[in-house]
């Protein structure tokens, strides 16, 4: 920089600051995208309509009209819950006695899948989890002794239960009661 004039040096720093601004905007957008998408999923119009805040909700079977979450699987019947640990642990229970694949997956507010439990892992037993926050909250409530505890990395997140359906209309009478065993609420 020694051979540059004051004027050239000024322009160098101006261009540099513009490039740094563009880079920061780029990185901020990439960082924020999953969090913003998850926020809309958990608090947006669909979430409001389905009343899924600390409560299980049961969307209709996937068709071409399903346009809430990209790449929906037409072979899965979804059940959902937007969990919120601000007021204490959330208890998740389900007992879908099905022979085909099903799973319960938990996602952090940044979209990471931090827990999954499928039918093979339960070996026929009911799912009964206590979801607690990794960091202390204002309303720390105790979890019953002996309960299975899952620590969520974030205070809010999303539960997605998948139930395999090869022919929904034919299996509806079995699948609907099975997935509606899902409960998700303040313990």
């Amino acid at each position, binding site marked *: 920089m020694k051979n540059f004039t004051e004027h050239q040096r000024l322009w160098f720093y101006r261009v540099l600051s513009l490039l740094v601004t563009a880079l920061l*905007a780029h990185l901020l957008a990439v960082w924020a995208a999953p969090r913003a998408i998850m926020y809309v999923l958990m608090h947006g119009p669909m979430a409001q309509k389905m009343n899924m805040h600390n409560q299980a909700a049961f969307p209709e079977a996937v068709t*071409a009209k399903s346009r809430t979450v990209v790449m929906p699987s037409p072979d899965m019947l979804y059940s959902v819950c937007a969990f919120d640990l601000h007021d204490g642990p959330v208890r998740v229970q389900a007992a879908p006695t099905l022979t085909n694949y099903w799973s319960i*997956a938990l996602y952090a507010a940044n979209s990471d899948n931090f827990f999954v439990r499928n039918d093979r892992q339960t070996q026929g037993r009911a799912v009964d989890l206590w979801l607690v926050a990794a960091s202390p909250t204002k309303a720390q409530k105790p979890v019953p002794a002996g309960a299975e505890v899952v620590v969520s990395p974030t205070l809010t997140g999303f539960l997605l239960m998948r139930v395999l359906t*090869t022919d929904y209309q034919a299996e509806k009478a079995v699948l609907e009661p099975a997935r509606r065993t899902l409960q998700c609420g303040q313990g």
Partner: protein
Amino acid sequence: MSKTGHWSLRAKRIAIGGALYVGAVVLGLGSAWWVLKKAPWLNPSVEVGAWRANMHAGSQDAGLYTRATIAVNALLALGRDETMYFVANRDDAGEALRAQCNYRITGVPPQARWWSITAYAQDLFLFDAPNGHYSLNGSNATLDAAGTFALSTGPAEQAGTYWLPTSGPGALVLTLRLYNPAPALQAAPQSLVAPAVQKIGTCA
């Protein structure tokens, strides 16, 4: 220079500087949108035939770009222990898949408890399928004597295959899902026997 002229020049400089910084922010946001939406498969960790996958999808180990890419294009993906996702947006010849073209996809059932191949439109939602066929999967696939399945996508039905109707002028995205993949496949995803994706005839 008069006092008025001095302030006028100063205001002009501030306006140009502000515009440049707004431009820089727009450039940053635009490039992020391009990377995540228009070129989401730039950083696959596995490529097998026409299929690509990122083995960190859904994982807490996912990097900044993988996490954002998955959130934008395949929200709520599961980790590879539970499900592996392979995506194809090009055929075996390297040409971009298009909804108005007809394709034949053949392969052997992957090493997984259950699998499916689904056709998605450019917006990553399902095509309107009048026949109700959205995916070929481990439950509805018919295997020939050699143990091979065959499906077709496109505006026209192909004889002897399971037809997933596609329509419109946009892109076609195929997704291969493997639920509870075999441990050997989890350990070596590149060992997947990739379904062949071939264009048939001319496009509509």
